[in-house]
């Protein structure tokens, strides 16, 4: 479980996040939704430790990320998987080496054990016979799938996805959504997805947090989403469905 308590962050005096509170449960796919520039990405960067919040606590199952020492932070980071908007695959490495990277870096597995794990992860995201291809030789959807395979290689406890559907056609988006949902349930991962895609939210959002102008305005389930009673959220949904 990840709990956010009064998270605030500002850049050059301009507040981007103001007292954001939210709870993301284990084995559930939680969505952070909101308009562009509303603070979703900054919130995610704070959660994964790329940015430090000005105040508040980000609690990973009882561990306050900001106050952990260097080595504890490192340990916690190895429990985090992240799927980036553009995939963020290492250009100089093949698909196989990309997925094998965290295993080579943090485990003492033998070459054959690493290869087995890589093939398992690639098969899990429905990619086969692409091991030797380079990121520049595969499509956007395949990059995202390789990104997911790399994220799950270390059996993460927490999975963060930054706009996983951006730039993808509806069919591929659906495949990616299903993969994220299956993996979350299968491995009991705490998954947090940043998204604009309201269809994905209704399809797979177990829990939704609506961020508006840096504040967490609403939190609930997808069934409560249509009757949230929140004007800004209703406007956002209407605009997204238009």
């Amino acid at each position, binding site marked *: 479980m990840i709990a956010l308590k009064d998270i605030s962050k500002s850049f050059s005096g301009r507040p981007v996040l103001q007292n954001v509170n939210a709870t993301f449960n284990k084995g559930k796919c939680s969505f952070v939704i909101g308009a562009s520039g509303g603070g979703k990405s900054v919130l995610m960067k704070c959660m*994964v*430790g*790329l940015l430090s919040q000005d105040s508040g606590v980000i609690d990973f199952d009882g561990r306050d990320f900001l106050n952990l020492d260097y080595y504890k932070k490192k340990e916690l*980071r190895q429990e985090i998987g992240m799927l980036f908007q*553009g995939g963020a695959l290492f250009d100089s490495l093949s698909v196989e080496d990309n997925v094998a*990277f*965290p295993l*080579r870096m*943090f485990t003492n597995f033998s070459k054959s054990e690493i290869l087995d794990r890589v093939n398992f992860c690639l098969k899990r995201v429905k990619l086969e016979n692409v091991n030797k291809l380079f990121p520049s030789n595969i499509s956007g959807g395949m990059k995202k799938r390789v990104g997911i395979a790399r994220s799950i290689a270390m059996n993460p406890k927490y999975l963060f996805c930054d706009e996983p559907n951006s730039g993808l056609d509806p069919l591929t988006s659906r495949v990616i959504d299903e993969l994220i949902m299956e993996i979350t349930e299968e491995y009991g991962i705490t998954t947090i997805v940043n998204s604009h895609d309201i269809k994905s939210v209704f399809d797979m959002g177990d829990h939704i947090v609506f961020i508006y102008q840096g504040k967490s305005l609403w939190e609930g389930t997808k069934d409560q989403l249509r009757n949230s009673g929140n004007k800004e959220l209703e406007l956002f949904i209407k605009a997204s469905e238009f």
Partner: protein
Amino acid sequence: MKFLEQFGRYILFLRACFRKPDKWRMFWRAFFTEVYKMGNDSFLIVSIISMFIGAVAVIQFGSQLQGSLVPMTILGRIVRDANILEFSPTITALVMAGKIGSNIASEIGTMKVSEQIDALEIMGVNAASYVALPKIFAALFAVPALVTYSMFLANVGGAISCYFSEMVSVDTYVQGLRMDFNSFFITHSLTKAVTSAFLIATISSYNGYQTEGGALEVGSASTKAVVQSCIAIIFFDYILTQIMLY
């Protein structure tokens, strides 16, 4: 004020770089790849430049000495010392700044803007150390090796120039090359080479690592890396010469 801020960031970047690598095996693999890339990519350009530096030095110094009472054997000695003390370490370093400096900055800059550095950080990898440390150590190995090679080739270039210009015979030139050799000059030259290598690799890595934005910023970081490296090389060239030779 801005310079101090940048310098502070540079020091913090170095502190992050010089941490124990997460996995030595991956560090050594990256190190050897970088040494090969730096050496192989710069070998031809360093060879050509060194030969011509030596050749031009012979003609320029030779024309100054002609008609004077100074014996022409001194030409070999002057060219040798100039090559060892200044031309080879400084010009090779400047060439390397342009060649590998821009390469390092653009490679790391591209990784930064395409979120590859963020991906490393999130995995728990010390990204600064992972991307920059093998390059820094590779430069510390490759640049002095190329400077040593350049010293040799510059003197060979001088001999070839003697052969074609008939200013002085090759035998006389070689006699001068072997005259009053001071081995401390090699120490001085290699000290400059190591310093330059450190400056090129760290300044370029730092500029790449600080890149934010897109392709335009990567280009700008690459240019900044080359300019700052060249200025730092010339500055430390002066400082080291002042300290070590006087």
